[in-house]
């Protein structure tokens, strides 16, 4: 199988894996136990937290380890909203968020009576800033937007959004940075809460991070012991959390180099795709080069996926986290690219591990499928 689905998840970096196996075997004691082995586990985990904080230019106590980015998003959004109901009843997000954000918002609306505004996006996939300005009001307590969209790679101007929010309201700003980490620099000083995930940057699954500024209080969603400042109960997954620092360090140290390489692959692939008939490239200049969203207007998403799968290529249509629902991308629809585009898109995601000849092979396959399977 030739892998073009790095936005869904990535293979684990060898150094991370080796470190993880060693920590798992040698330091299995509960990080909250008071004996020497337990304290060792704790020290390793806290060293990882401290180094991660340093890499992100924040303080260690501003970082909470969670089991996945969806958990971090839920904790940020529901944990904040439920802890601050007395402050206001209004939350703002966008129409193109990850399902973990969308469903947290829907729950807050339906079960807890919050009012949620879903901001429209521009044709390039970025948030409509005028709509944001209009939506902010005295009742707004929270704004949550993603940094980089998982289906199109579209980048939101996070610093500008933060400036508008903080100028016009008392709302706090949460950013889902999952697809941005290791690709863009993250302006955390402007952001109140942020979500990161390890398995998108060649780390382990079951490993994520919520950054929250010191002054922000959350309501715990998983009740348990004293772990993670009492905000996330459950025995600490110390070995996984211990290798987060290494994962991040490796990802950041080669970020520029990898970005340049991926940009070349991206340009080559896009140039070839634009030559094909009935093809609409939906990622644009405002997108990270790692994600290319493209609609084959005469070949449905599902057909394209199956055909590519048969030929040995792994790609996704829309977000993998909602892949089992019907083949319609709410992200593409929200960008105003039309109903056909929304049901005929696929997402090709690239990595520094992708080889140029793999891109060539994919182009050949796409040409064939676009020709053989097209509807009249």
């Amino acid at each position, binding site marked *: 199988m030739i892998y073009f689905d790095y936005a869904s998840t990535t293979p684990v970096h060898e150094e991370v894996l080796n470190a993880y196996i060693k920590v798992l075997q040698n330091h299995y004691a509960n990080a909250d136990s008071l004996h020497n082995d337990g304290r060792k586990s704790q020290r390793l985990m806290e060293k990882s937290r401290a180094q991660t904080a340093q890499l992100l230019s924040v303080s260690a106590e501003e970082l909470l380890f969670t089991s996945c980015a969806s958990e971090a998003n839920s904790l940020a959004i529901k944990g904040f909203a439920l802890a601050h109901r007395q402050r206001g009843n209004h939350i703002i997000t966008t129409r193109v968020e990850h399902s973990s954000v969308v469903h947290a918002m829907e729950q807050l609306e339906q079960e807890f009576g919050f009012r949620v505004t879903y901001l429209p996006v521009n044709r390039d996939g970025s948030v409509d800033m005028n709509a944001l300005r209009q939506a902010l009001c005295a009742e707004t307590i929270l704004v949550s937007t993603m940094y980089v969209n998982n289906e199109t790679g579209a980048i939101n101007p996070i610093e500008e959004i933060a400036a508008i929010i903080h100028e016009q309201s008392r709302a706090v700003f949460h950013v889902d940075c999952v697809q941005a980490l290791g690709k863009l620099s993250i302006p955390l000083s402007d952001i109140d809460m942020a979500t990161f995930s390890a398995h998108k940057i060649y780390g382990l699954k079951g490993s994520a991070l919520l950054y929250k500024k010191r002054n922000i209080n959350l309501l715990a969603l998983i009740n348990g012991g004293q772990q993670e400042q009492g905000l996330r109960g459950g025995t600490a997954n110390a070995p996984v959390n211990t290798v987060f620092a290494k994962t991040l*360090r490796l990802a950041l140290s080669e970020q520029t180099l990898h970005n340049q390489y991926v940009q070349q692959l991206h340009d080559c692939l896009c140039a070839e795709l634009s030559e094909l008939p009935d093809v609409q490239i939906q990622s644009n200049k405002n997108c990270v080069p790692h994600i290319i969203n493209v609609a084959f207007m005469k070949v449905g998403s599902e057909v394209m996926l199956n055909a590519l799968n048969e030929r040995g290529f792994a790609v996704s249509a829309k977000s993998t986290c909602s892949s089992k629902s019907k083949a319609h991308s709410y992200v593409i629809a929200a960008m105003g690219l039309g109903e056909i585009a929304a049901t005929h898109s696929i997402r090709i995601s690239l990595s520094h591990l992708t080889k140029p000849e793999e891109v060539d092979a994919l182009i050949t396959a796409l040409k064939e499928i676009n020709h053989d399977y097209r509807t009249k």
Partner: protein
Amino acid sequence: MTIEPNEPIVYNHILVRFGELSTKGKNKKDFIKRLYTNVKNALSPYQKLTYERTHDRMYILLNGEDGEAVANVLKNVFGISSFSLAIRVPSQIEDIVAMGKRVAMEDDAQTFKIDTRRSDKRFPMISDEVNRAVAGAILKATSMKVDVKHPQLRLQIEIHETDTYLMKGRIAGSGGYPVGVGGKAMVMLSGGIDSPVAAYLTMKRGVAIECVHYASPPYTSARAQEKVLELARMVSGYQGHIRIHIVPFTDLQLAIYEHCDESYAITIMRRMMYRIAERLAKQQGALAIVNGESIGQVASQTLESMAVINSVIQMPVIRPVAAMDKLEIITLAKKLGTYETSILPFEDCCTIFTPKNPVTKPAIDKAEKMEQRFDYESLLDQCLQGITTMEIDPIAKTEEDEEYF
């Protein structure tokens, strides 16, 4: 010096102004030498830096190191009254005027003032003439106006024999004396809120410190000890590194509870701690004992208690926070960053056997009588012989487990 006109100005120097020591006549040389050493030690991670010093200033050449990061370290070095990021030009009026103009053009202030100081009085223009020359160029090139009372931009120019430094802004230093000029003291570091603050205040007056900590395993945990080491690490940056002595106190403490009245247990325990601290201090060449006692805070810190406890030793005991309110101490602890660690709830020597009714007005003769009931001298010797000594660095140098990170 050639500078591309469109490149933003790079502040490639830091000019350091000495603190109170400027007034200290014949000791001045030693003070400056010590400050110079302390600054170099504190900045040792920044290897590209080079240093120059004159009789009243020190110059740090950044050579590409991050000025802001260096500034953050400098803020914690005692003996510095203030410092500024500076640009160096040759001491030629044309160069000074040209750079002054560029600094002003890069700034978005509406009003300005030029503040020239000549340390080289042979410079052909007097300070005021330099002021006028630079101001004239700025007035011509920008729409800024002069405001000598409340300028938005205060451009300082210091003219020395060969080089001139231009700077705007002034970053306050920590003040105080360079650590080490005032000798050495032994700080009793408990793990509470007060003693790290006491350690900080002592170093601020130029006194180098070592720390002594009393541990009573298994009644006190390894975590409690780690916490104390962490506190030592947090204040160690003010003098470079800290030596800490851990005293095994369990046997002596148990003997106290066996032989003395419960209400006097803390009083006698403190007397024993003082004795150990004094002997250790002498051994280490320290001239005084420092602790975090605050008048009336607990039973053993009433003036009556202090008198009974203090009477067992000769060495001066400095209590930097004696007259401070708890809230004042907490504010300082928060500023130092030690507060959050200090309040972690682990048992220490003073809390494990807390008597129900500790005596607040102990009598010396009673305390002495109780101490006669057991051979504490040999227990004191055991404590001193069992001391473990550790060196604590501001940045934990843990090479263990490096493969995991």
